[in-house]
């Protein structure tokens, strides 16, 4: 049956391509077909996962080779897939959450004339994402990796008529390409070093290679991961990516694609295990992103951007966990899954709010919506509780474990993670207050209303998952489940008991909540965004996304633009100028040389006579020489 795992990919892919090619006639059923395809894929994934559960530990990695993809020279890559414990979880997450989002989108995109195409892109995304997680070769993984990038590009820029959307899409793709550079070089290095890019083979053989190779590979893969997962320094595209329709933000830029980096690190655990330096780099990246994302989340008034900052931050957590090595891999994946639930939930909730608010994303124009959108409020609230880590909701379990593991690694890392938890509580509470509580600050002609059922059901489903997602941790199931892949971790004894740490975390979270309530419930919230000059320097930096774009501009974009301009000038005046210059000089020479042709026969004779003299002298000179 696992031989058929390619069907997981093929179903949504076929559906996606079919919907694209199918003309206008497909508009009526396109969304349904897309949803069904995703659901089918999910069901098949469930079946496969279930049969995996029934197998022994060793048999739980099911590889299948579809065909030889590339066989050129000494380079050989099979189009092969591996369904194992890790990819199985991802398949469920992707297709499950994906299906819910498909359903949601039926309603959300109901009035868009290009809805069929939207579903086609979603399907293609699902297929690419599944390729990414199922791949048994890094190059196949790269295929999926770029496939999701393409889908992301198409979906961010779905509303192409908006310049901002198109620009955001392009930015996402280009920044991702920088990450891909790392990926590509990494794969080349694998090929050079091992003669293969099979994930299994490389991770198995890495111990035989020198440490610097492992470090190099680790760093290169990390660069790729940073691009895809919006980690510092390649984070800047994610907030812009919110230009896409909200379901896209939920599916791609919260639940699934952006976590691909984490998947990659976990999947390449062999490489990272072999290099301390690479792991440290992962931790640093994770930690920095964690705090940066949280910071940005605090300052944004755009609900989706606030959530996007939060996403960055949460992925930072995952990265951090993944960087901890075997101790953290499982928790990274665990948090990834729970985050997939609650963040998708919240994004869809945000979409629901926007749906009711005439697509306004400015939280300062919200307020008091809890009575107008009860279901949305309830589901969002569950997601909120989950993300800030209120027991017993999903986020509590996963985040708690990560912070614990971080303390196990290093106190400073642990403290950073802890601080992040507090800030998370702060900005999420702020978001809740500004949206659902406080006074109405609506614009005119806005009549908030609850979304149709097709949108609320997925919300309810995801909310439920956010609430109970922690179940995976029961008796450390997730760690044991993933252990054949991530390797066994020795439990390090912390300086303080785990339960105390949990308490401390909870207290920090509560402080964050309290602070938010203190700041935002005390006085009415301004309906207009305060000017930059009137807010603190922290808020200002957060609003400007910590000046990441400005930095990119200054360091990369502008120099490139200048270089390009210079080169255009140089190509015209320098390279081509040289050629045309030679041509012009020849023309001048020609004009000059035709001058002696004066028409006077005597000057011709003179030329000849001169020639005679020279010829005679030249020949006589031969004897002298």
């Amino acid at each position, binding site marked *: 049956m696992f031989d058929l795992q390619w069907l997981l990919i093929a179903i949504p892919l076929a559906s996606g391509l079919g919907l694209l090619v199918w003309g206008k006639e497909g508009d009526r059923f396109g969304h349904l077909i897309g949803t069904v395809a995703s659901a089918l894929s999910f069901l098949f994934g469930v079946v496969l996962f279930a049969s995996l559960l029934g197998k022994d530990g060793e048999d739980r990695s099911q590889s299948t080779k579809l065909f030889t993809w590339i066989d050129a020279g000494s380079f050989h890559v099979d189009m092969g897939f591996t369904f194992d414990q890790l990819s199985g979880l991802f398949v469920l997450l992707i297709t499950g959450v994906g299906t819910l989002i498909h359903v949601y989108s039926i309603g959300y995109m109901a009035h868009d004339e290009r809805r069929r195409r939207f579903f086609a892109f979603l399907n293609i995304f699902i297929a690419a994402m599944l390729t990414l997680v199922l791949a048994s070769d890094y190059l196949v993984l790269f295929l999926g990796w770029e496939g999701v990038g393409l889908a992301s590009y198409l979906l961010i820029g779905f509303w192409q008529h908006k310049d901002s959307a198109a620009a955001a899409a392009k930015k996402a793709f280009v920044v991702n390409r920088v990450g891909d550079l790392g990926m590509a070089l990494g794969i080349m290095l694998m090929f050079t070093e091992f003669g293969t890019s099979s994930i299994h083979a490389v991770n198995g053989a890495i111990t035989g290679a020198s440490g610097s190779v492992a470090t190099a590979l680790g760093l290169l893969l990390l660069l790729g991961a940073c691009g895809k997962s919006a980690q510092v320094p390649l984070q800047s595209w994610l907030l812009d990516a919110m230009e896409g329709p909200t379901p896209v933000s939920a599916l791609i830029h919260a639940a699934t694609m952006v976590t691909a980096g984490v998947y990659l690190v976990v999947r390449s655990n062999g490489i990272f295990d072999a290099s301390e330096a690479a792991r440290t780099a992962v931790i640093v990246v994770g930690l920095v992103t964690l705090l940066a994302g949280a910071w940005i989340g605090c300052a944004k008034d755009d609900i989706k951007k606030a959530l996007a900052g939060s996403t960055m931050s949460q992925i930072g957590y995952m990265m951090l966990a993944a960087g901890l090595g075997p101790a953290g891999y499982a928790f990274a994946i665990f948090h990834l899954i729970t985050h997939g639930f609650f963040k998708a939930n919240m994004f869809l909730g945000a979409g629901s709010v926007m749906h009711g608010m005439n697509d306004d994303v400015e939280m300062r124009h919200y307020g008091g919506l809890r009575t107008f959108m009860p279901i949305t409020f309830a589901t969002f609230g569950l997601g909120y509780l989950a993300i800030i880590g209120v027991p017993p909701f999903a986020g509590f379990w996963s985040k708690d474990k990560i912070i614990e593991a971080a303390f196990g690694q290093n106190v400073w890392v642990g403290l950073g993670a802890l601080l992040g938890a507090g800030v998370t509580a702060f900005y999420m509470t702020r978001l809740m207050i500004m949206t659902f509580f406080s006074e109405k600050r609506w614009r005119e002609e806005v009549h908030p209303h609850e979304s149709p059922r097709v949108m609320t059901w997925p919300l309810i489903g995801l909310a439920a998952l956010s609430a109970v997602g922690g179940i995976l941790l029961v008796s450390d199931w997730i760690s044991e489940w993933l252990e054949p892949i991530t390797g066994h971790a020795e439990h390090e004894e912390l300086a303080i008991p785990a339960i105390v740490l949990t308490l401390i975390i909870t207290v920090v979270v509560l402080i964050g909540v309290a602070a938010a309530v203190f700041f935002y419930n005390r006085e009415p919230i301004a309906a207009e965004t305060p000017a930059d000059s009137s807010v603190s320097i922290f808020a200002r930096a957060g609003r400007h996304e910590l000046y990441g774009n400005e930095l990119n501009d200054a360091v990369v974009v502008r120099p490139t633009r200048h270089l390009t301009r210079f080169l255009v000038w140089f190509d015209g005046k320098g390279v081509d100028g040289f050629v045309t210059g030679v041509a012009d000089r020849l023309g001048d020479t020609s004009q000059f040389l035709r001058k002696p042709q004066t028409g006077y026969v005597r000057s011709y004779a003179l030329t000849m006579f*001169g020639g005679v003299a020279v010829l005679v002298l030249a020949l006589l000179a031969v004897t002298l020489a």
Partner: protein
Amino acid sequence: MTAFWCLAPIMVIAALGLVFARKAVHAALCLAVVMISLAVLYAAQGAPFLFAVQIIVYTGAIMMLFLFVLMLVGVDSSDAVKETIGGQRLAAAIIGLIFGVTVVLAVGQTVSGVVVGLKAANGNGNPYGLSELLFGKYVLAFEFTSALLITAALGAMVLAHKERLTTRHSQADISARRMREYAESGRHPGPLPAPGVFARHNAVDTPALLPDGSPLESSISDSLVARGQVRDGFEDDIDKVVEQLDDDEQGLGGEK
């Protein structure tokens, strides 16, 4: 050797005269001097046949041809002093000097001194020796010089000879025609009035004046009219004549 040392300076001077003489005729005469001197040198070097040919063909025929053409073109024609092409003379002099010095030093002074002499070759006489070569070794070249001569003749014919395209009219034909024309159209049978008659100038480009003082166009050669070389401004002259006549009349009147 005496002949050589006597003639060499003369030849060089004459040659220089060819270069420097302003008048073409003088140049031609200088050339003739060179040629005749050469003939003497030929004789001195065992080439009596060439001596004769040089005198007859070169000095006699070729130089005459030159002189004929000079006459045709204008004996007096001479080069203007001013050089039209900038630097030509200087360059010619410099290159000439370089060339001359080079060849004289490199070639003229290095000719091997061994002189075989023509005693043996002229054993049967110089003309015999020449004819033996001419009709033996070089017979083909000799034959093909005829092609040259034919070409030359043909060329002269083509470029200089004007073939008559109409039959020549005898004097009788002409007078008969004139009288017929006079009978038919009243055209004046006699010669046209000569130009310059009753005119201020008697130059050919000045038309004759009719008794009423108006110019007679037909008195001027057609070709001058075609070239536009008819003297213009003669109306002005006529005014002057009229003025003069008026003065005369007044003078006469005064006497009356």
